[in-house]
C-alpha cells in the first residue's frame, strides 16, 4: 500500500504533529478560532498517522526509527509495535474528543490563559505519543519527564492556593519518583545489560543471566513505584491533589495521558525489560499483584467516602489503574491481555465520566454528588453516558469493562491465585457501591430546590455533549466488538 519509507516517517509525524502545533497555537493566541483550528488540525493529523500504521502493525511488523544518537550506546529511538499501538490509538483518538470538549468547557467558563492551556495540552499529547512509541527505556524516560513538566501548568491552571498545592504535590511525586527511583534503576540496568532497548518479546527481558536476585528485586521495586504516574499506593497521593485542575485536564490526566503513561511504562518495563520468565522465577509478579490488590481495594473504599464527584472519580482511577498492572503482574496470557485491554476500556469509560463531571459543572456549577439529586432529569444525555461508563467501570456486560474483568478472572484462575479472584469480586462490589448511587440519585432522586427552581440548568453545550456521547458509545462498542483491539493485545502475548 505505502512504500516502506512511509512507515518510517509516519511515527515521527505522529510524534511531531502536536509539537509543530505548539508555536502555531502560541502565535495565534489572539484569534481563538484559528488557535483551536491548529489544535484540531494537529489532532487529526496525529490520529490519521497513527491510524495509517495499524494495518502494517497488525500484519506483524515492528517499525523502529532512530532519531538521534544521544549517547554512544543509546539513541532516541521510536518503535511502533502492537503494544504501543494500542495506547497510541487510544490517546490520539481521545485527543480529538478532548479537544472538542475542551473548547466547549473553556469557552463555557471563559477561563483565563487559554492559549497556554492549549499549548501545554498539545505538548503533553506529544509526550504521550512519545511514550507509546518509544523504543528504549531512555526515550521513554525522556517523554515521561516531558509529560510531567508539560502538564504542570495544566494542573496549576487556576493559579490559586489549591491549584498551587495540587500542582506542587503533583510534581513532587512525579519528579521524585522518576529522578529518585527510575533514573538510578535505569542506570544500574544499563550497567548490567549494556543497553536499554526493549526486548523483542515479553518473555525474555534484557536482564542478563546471573544477576543477583536482590538487585533484580530492587530494580523491580524502583520501577514499580518510580513510575509514580501509575498511582500505586503510596505513590498515588498526587492524583486526588491534581483534582483541582480544570475538568478537561482531569479527564486528560486521569483517563488518557498521565496515568495511562504511568501504567504503560510500568507494563512496558515489566514485560519487555524484566520479562515474564524473570518475574516468574523470582515471584515478582505475585508480589506486585498483591501490592496492587491492596491499592485496588483501598482506593475503592476511599472512593466510597468522597462526596466530590471528581474526587470519587480520582480514587476510582487509582483503583482501576491497578487492574492493568494486576493483569500484567499475573503473568498468564489471559491476564496480560485483560490488563492491556483495560488501558483502552478504562480510557474511554473514565474520560466519559470526567467529561460528564465537567458538563455537570458547566451546566449547573455543581461539584458534589449529594447536590446532584434529580439532575439526571434535566441532563438526560449526560447522565445516560455517565451510567454507561459506570457500567464499564463495574464490569457489567455489554460495556467494555466486562471484557477486562473476564480476561482478568480467567487469568487469575490460570495463575491459581484465588485471593486475586476475591479481590476482583470485592472490587466489583465496591464499584457498584460508589457508582450506583450517583446514577440512581440523578435519575430517581428527588430534585432539590436549587435544581427545580432554576430553569437555566439544561444540557451542556453541544460541543461538549458530542464527545461525551461519542466516548460512551465507543465504550459500549468496545464491549460488543472487542476483537478489534484484542487483535493488538493478542499480538503482544504471542
Amino acid at each position, binding site marked *: 500500500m505505502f512504500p516502506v519509507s512511509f512507515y518510517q516517517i509516519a511515527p515521527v509525524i505522529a510524534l511531531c504533529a502536536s509539537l509543530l502545533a505548539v508555536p502555531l497555537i502560541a502565535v495565534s493566541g489572539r484569534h481563538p478560532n484559528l488557535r483551536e483550528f491548529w489544535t484540531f488540525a494537529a489532532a487529526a493529523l496525529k490520529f490519521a498517522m497513527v491510524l495509517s500504521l495499524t494495518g502494517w502493525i497488525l500484519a506483524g511488523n515492528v517499525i523502529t526509527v532512530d532519531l*538521534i544518537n*544521544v549517547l554512544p550506546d543509546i539513541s532516541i529511538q521510536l518503535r511502533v509495535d502492537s503494544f504501543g499501538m494500542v495506547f497510541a490509538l487510544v490517546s490520539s483518538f481521545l485527543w480529538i474528543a478532548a479537544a472538542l470538549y475542551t473548547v466547549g468547557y473553556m469557552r463555557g467558563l471563559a477561563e483565563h490563559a487559554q492559549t497556554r492551556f492549549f499549548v501545554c495540552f498539545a505538548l503533553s499529547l506529544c509526550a504521550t505519543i512519545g511514550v507509546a512509541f518509544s523504543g528504549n527505556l531512555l526515550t521513554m524516560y525522556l517523554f515521561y519527564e516531558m509529560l510531567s513538566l508539560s502538564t504542570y501548568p495544566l494542573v496549576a491552571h487556576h493559579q*490559586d492556593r489549591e491549584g498551587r498545592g495540587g500542582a*506542587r504535590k503533583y*510534581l513532587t511525586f512525579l*519528579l521524585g519518583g522518576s529522578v529518585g527511583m527510575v*533514573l538510578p534503576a535505569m*542506570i544500574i540496568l544499563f550497567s548490567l545489560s549494556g543497553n536499554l532497548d526493549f526486548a523483542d518479546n515479553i518473555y525474555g527481558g534484557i536482564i542478563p543471566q546471573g544477576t543477583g536476585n536482590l538487585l533484580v528485586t530492587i530494580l523491580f521495586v524502583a520501577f514499580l513505584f518510580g513510575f509514580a504516574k501509575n498511582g500505586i499506593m503510596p505513590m498515588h497521593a498526587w492524583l486526588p491533589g491534581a483534582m483541582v485542575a480544570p475538568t478537561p485536564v482531569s479527564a486528560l490526566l486521569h483517563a488518557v495521558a498521565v496515568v495511562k503513561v504511568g501504567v504503560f511504562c510500568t507494563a512496558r518495563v515489566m514485560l519487555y525489560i524484566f520479562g515474564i520468565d524473570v518475574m516468574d522465577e523470582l515471584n515478582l509478579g505475585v508480589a506486585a499483584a498483591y501490592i496492587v490488590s491492596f491499592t485496588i481495594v483501598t482506593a475503592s473504599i476511599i472512593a466510597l467516602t468522597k462526596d466530590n464527584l471528581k474526587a470519587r472519580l480520582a480514587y476510582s482511577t487509582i483503583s482501576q489503574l491497578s487492574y492493568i498492572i494486576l493483569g500484567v503482574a499475573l503473568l498468564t496470557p489471559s491476564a496480560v491481555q485483560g490488563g492491556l485491554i483495560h488501558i483502552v476500556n478504562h480510557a474511554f469509560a473514565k474520560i466519559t465520566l470526567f467529561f460528564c463531571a465537567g458538563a455537570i459543572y458547566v451546566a449547573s456549577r455543581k461539584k458534589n454528588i449529594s447536590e446532584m439529586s434529580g439532575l439526571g432529569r434535566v441532563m438526560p444525555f449526560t447522565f445516560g453516558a455517565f451510567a454507561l461508563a459506570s457500567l464499564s467501570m463495574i464490569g457489567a456486560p455489554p460495556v467494555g469493562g466486562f471484557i477486562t474483568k473476564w480476561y482478568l478472572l480467567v487469568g487469575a484462575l490460570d495463575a491459581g491465585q484465588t485471593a486475586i479472584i476475591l479481590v476482583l469480586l470485592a472490587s466489583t462490589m465496591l464499584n457498584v457501591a460508589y457508582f450506583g448511587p450517583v446514577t440512581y440519585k440523578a435519575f430517581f432522586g428527588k430534585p432539590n430546590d436549587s435544581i427545580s427552581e432554576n430553569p437555566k440548568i439544561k444540557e451542556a453545550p453541544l460541543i461538549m455533549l458530542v464527545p461525551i456521547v461519542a466516548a460512551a458509545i465507543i465504550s459500549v462498542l468496545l464491549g460488543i466488538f472487542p476483537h478489534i483491539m484484542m487483535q493488538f493485545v493478542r499480538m503482544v502475548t504471542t
Partner: protein
Amino acid sequence: MMDQTPVFIIAIPLFASLLLTLIGPLGPRVAYGLLIGALSLSLGASLATMVRVVQTGQAIHYYMGDWLPPMGIELVIDHLSAAVLVMIGVCALLSGIYSMHTAGQDNHDRLNNYYALFSLLVTGLLGMASAGDVFNLYVLLEISALASYGLLARGGGKAYFATFKYLVMGTIGACFYLLGVGYIYIMTGSLNMADLADILSRESLQESVSIRIGFTLIILGIWTKMALFPLHAWLPNAYSRAGTATACLIAPLMTKVSVYIMLRMMFTVFSADYIFNQIAWSSLVIYMASAAVVLGMITAFAQRDMRKMLTYIIVAEIGYMTGGAWLANTAGYTGAVYHILADGLMTLSLFMAVGAIIYRTGDTSANAMQGIFRRMPITAAVFLIGAASIVGIPPTCGFFSKWYLLQGAVQAGAWIFVAALLIAGLMAAIIFFRLLEAAFFGNLDDEGLSVGHSAPHSGTGAVQMREAPLTMLVPLAVAGAALLGLGIYTNEVVTYLIRWSVPAGF
C-alpha cells in the same frame, strides 16, 4: 596559518587586553567592540583548532619560540583541552556580549580597564587550558586569579571583603600548587607535562615520598582554587557580591577550568595507575565529593538571594566533577569532563538569566522571580532550561552528565556518591521549583495570593512585558539553546572529544 591557530587563541585576547588599557579616550563603545572582536576571533581560533584535533585524531603541539620540549615550552591541545577551550571561548564571548549594559553599572569610569581585565582573565583561562607545562600553567593561573580578584572587587561594598577572603584563599591555593611543582621539579628536573609523565612512570619515583607530597600539595592547591567542599568557603560570597557582568564571566569558568587542571594533573602528569593504586585516596575523595554535593545543595536551599543560591549550586557541581574524576572508570571520567562543558553552560545561562532579572527588577532576592513568566518570557524560559539542566531532566545536557556520573558511580560501586547525586538532583528540583513556581504564579508568599490571583484574570494590560535589552537577551537565548544542543549532541561530544582523552588504565 592553520598551524598557528593554537597561539592565536591566547595571543588575541592578550593583545586585546593590552590595547584596551591604551584606548581609554576612545570611549566605551570602542572598548566593547575591541573586546567582542577579540573574543570572537579567539573563539574562531579555538574552533579551528578543535576541528583540526578532531580531524587528525591527535593532539596538536605548538612549540613556543620554536624550542622543542622539554627545553622550551609547548602548548598541547588534545581532545580534552580543545573541548574546554571552545567552552571557555563560547562562555567568554556570550558573557562579553552580555556585559554591554551591566558592565557599566559598577564601572562608571575606566570601563576600558575593566574590559582589559576581563580579556586578561579569558587569556589566563585559555592559556591554562592549552598549557603543556606545569610551571606555565602556574603563571597563567596567577593571571586569571589576579584578574578575577580585580573584577570581583569591582562589585564594591561588601565585595571587597569577600574578594579579600578569596584573595587569601586563592593565594594559598596557588602557593600550594607552586610548592608541589617545586618538589616535583627537584625530583625530576623537568616541567614539561609529557616529559614529567615519562619520568614519573619510572619505578624508582613511584614510591618517593617527595613526589607523593608534591602531588598532595598540587591537588590541595587545585582543590582550594576550585572550591571543593571543605575549602569552598570563599566562593559564595565572592561570586554573589560581584557585579552581574563579572559574575557571568567568572562563575561559569574559573572553577571549571580548575577542575580541568585537576584532570590534567591527575591523568596527564601523574597516571591513573599512580593515583588510584599508589596514592589510593579515591574513597576519601568520593566521600568529600558526596559531602560537597549534598551540603552544597542543602545550603543553596537555605538561601534567599538568588545569586548566592546559584553559587552554592556551583559548590555542589564541583562535587559532581570531582567525584566523577575520582571514580576511576571511563564512565565517571566521561561524566566529569562532560560536566565541565555542561556546567559551564548551565551556570552561564542561569547567571545571565538571574542577571537579566536583577537588571530589570533591581532585586536580588527570590522575590524578583515573581511573575517572570509573564514579564520576561524568554529569560524565564532560559532559566527554566538551566534549572532543568541542573536537576537533570532530558534532553538538557545536565541529564547526560548525570547519566554518566551515575553510571560511573554504579560501576565503581560508590553507592554513597549515587545517593548524593540523587539527593542533589531532588534538592535542586525543589530549589528551582520554588523559584519557578513564584515565576509562574506571580507571587511568593501565601498571604499575597489574592493579589496574585486577580492579576491573571484582569487581562493582559495589568502586567507589562519588559525583557532585558537585546544585548543581554541574545546571549541568554543562545546559552539556553546551547544547553539543549549540547544535550542532543552528547553522542558526538563524547565520541569525538571525550572518548579520546580517556586516560590509559581505565
